[in-house]
């Protein structure tokens, strides 16, 4: 039986909005930007997220993780509204990606195998390009885990999949990202420090 929540006054809702919701605007904007690839669309998505959060503020448990709650609203708004409106489906069908990256197995080349400085010296452009090249479902978990530090459990709630799926999706996403970064590093002239060979 669900517990009836006390209705909030407008003043109480505004207080929650200012103190618990608004401080996460930068994180939400970054997430929205990497989902939409467009600054205006990201602003619209963030705006919509806040409108929904305010409207449904009663459903938020004060003092709990507002950031995770807002991210969940944003992710749902993106899937339910933005993607339909924009008529721009994700560039890669996730099932194709799942099939392509079916195996969790990795071989030795799945760690970077490059001089550490090569990745550290990469400009933000290369890192950003690599993140953008990831299939949307992979990009999402990387952003949630590695940029926003959400736990597996929180990510599971935000994107609505079991924790085991979060874990395996993250594992594959990180390996795919590493492959991309490795290619960028080679293109910048860095060598595989073990073989001493440059990738063509």
């Amino acid at each position: 039986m669900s517990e009836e929540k006390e209705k909030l006054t407008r003043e109480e809702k505004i207080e929650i909005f200012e103190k618990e919701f608004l401080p996460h605007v930068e994180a939400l904007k970054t997430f929205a930007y990497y989902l939409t690839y467009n600054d205006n669309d990201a602003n619209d998505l963030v705006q919509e997220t806040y409108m929904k959060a305010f409207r449904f503020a009663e459903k938020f448990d004060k003092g709990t993780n507002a950031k995770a709650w807002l991210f969940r609203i944003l992710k749902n708004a993106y899937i339910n509204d933005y993607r339909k409106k924009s008529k721009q489906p994700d560039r890669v069908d996730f099932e194709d990606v799942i099939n392509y990256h079916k195996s969790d197995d990795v071989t030795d080349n799945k760690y970077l195998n490059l001089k550490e400085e090569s990745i550290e010296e990469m400009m933000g452009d290369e890192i950003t390009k690599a993140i953008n090249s990831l299939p949307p479902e992979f990009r999402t978990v990387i952003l949630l885990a590695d940029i926003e530090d959400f736990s597996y459990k929180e990510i599971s709630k935000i994107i609505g999949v079991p924790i085991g799926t979060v874990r395996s999706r993250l594992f594959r996403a990180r390996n795919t990202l590493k492959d991309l970064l490795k290619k960028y590093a080679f293109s910048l002239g860095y060598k595989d420090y073990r073989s001493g060979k440059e990738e063509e």
Partner: protein
Amino acid sequence: MNKKNNTTDFLKNVHRYLDNALSTNESKNFIQDVYKNPLLAKILNEERNLRTTIKNKLQRPEVAQNLIDSIRDNIYS
């Protein structure tokens, strides 16, 4: 267990360790393995550095004051 499986398992544990998703005992065992093997230590270090680099260098879009104003306007109106 073959080398490929060992590498896969170790990498999975690296991720879980850095994600704070291992139990206390699992973490302890994992760190003991890392101490015993310099290659494993190197892989762990590489993963940690990669995450730090990504976090620090990912370009974050600006949040214009007019976005915040516009959100407030819509809510307060």
